[in-house]
């Protein structure tokens, strides 16, 4: 079940109320959505909450999904909204981190295998910390483009803005990231 046509069929069944079809969509996408959420919110617990919220919003509003974008792009749009909501919630509760605490957990203990975590290179840690210091919007642009490989048009749909705005935003985000990494990156 990997072709676009098969996925369309699956989504149509889910729109028709099939729990099995929706669970298949969860199986297909939840790991990718979790990784995006984690890279945006930078906290494993918050990311877990975000990804659950994403699929709850998806099942609630799947009737409105109209195939103008891929189902994955639609999920990423919901992820972006849910992650930004989570970041706002964190700010309201006064524990806005974007700091090394959250990142250390994300790198070391939050997502499991300590062996894998210990194998993380110093460079990767430096990059993640730099990403954590970007503004959420800039960080999201970098995540969607550099980590998820979305096209500008898809990112524009997710961010609800024009392709030109994405182009400028990515330029700004990369410049800022380069600066945070030190002008000569690791």
């Amino acid at each position, binding site marked *: 079940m990997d072709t676009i046509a098969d996925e369309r069929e699956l989504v149509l069944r889910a729109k028709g109320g099939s729990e099995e079809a929706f669970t298949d969509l969860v199986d297909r996408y939840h790991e990718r959505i979790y990784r995006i959420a984690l890279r945006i919110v930078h906290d494993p617990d918050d990311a877990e909450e975000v990804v*659950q919220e994403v699929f*709850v919003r998806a*099942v609630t509003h799947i009737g409105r999904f109209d195939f103008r974008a891929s189902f994955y792009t639609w999920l990423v749009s919901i992820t972006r909204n849910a992650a930004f909501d989570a970041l706002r919630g964190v700010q309201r509760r006064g524990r806005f981190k974007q700091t090394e605490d959250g990142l250390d957990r994300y790198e070391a203990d939050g*997502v499991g295998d300590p062996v894998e975590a210990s194998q993380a290179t110093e460079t*990767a840690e430096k990059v*993640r910390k730099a990403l954590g210091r970007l503004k959420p919007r800039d960080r999201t642009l970098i995540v969607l483009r*550099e980590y998820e490989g979305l096209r500008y048009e898809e990112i524009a749909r997710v961010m609800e803005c024009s392709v030109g705005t994405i182009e400028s935003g990515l*330029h700004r985000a*990369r410049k800022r990231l380069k600066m945070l990494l030190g002008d000569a990156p*690791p």
Partner: protein
Amino acid sequence: MNEDINNETKDRVERLIGLEMDDRLDEAGRRELDELLRDDEGLRVRDEMLAVRAVLSADAAAPMPVPPLLRDKIVARVATARANAVKNSQPNAQEAPGGTSGEVLSIGSPVLRMVRSIAAAAAVVLGATGWFASGGFGGMVRADDVHHVRTIEDEIRDRTDEDGSIREFLAWKFLGADRKAGDAK
């Protein structure tokens, strides 16, 4: 002055390299970039940008395991949400005491229930005219408010086979549907 020019050049090289990395550089941009890369500063900026890209790619390829029970938690949350949605959409699931018509007083989301109660009261007291026409209703709930499981629009659309002046009025107000000639007057 020289520094300004350098910063401008650096910025331009960064922008063009970014476009090149994303396969979005057109012919004119490529010519401009080739020109800028004749300069050592341009080459240095390009190397830095490519180094950042390489580091990001390596990070993207690195393993990032998901919590082991995440999938089950999602499925459970989705099942709960689905059950709540079904409960909320069942007509006459809970009829308010004294209600004579399930379609008007059946239970939806709390906001919808409140709005319906107000609508019914206003219809009785004011003949369903002045208060609605003042726009007070529209200020309380947006028909496209995605935070609610069922919107007013959903309700109206689901009940087009039924009669009722309030419903027709709402259809006219929010959806532009034709009102019966008698109601319009």
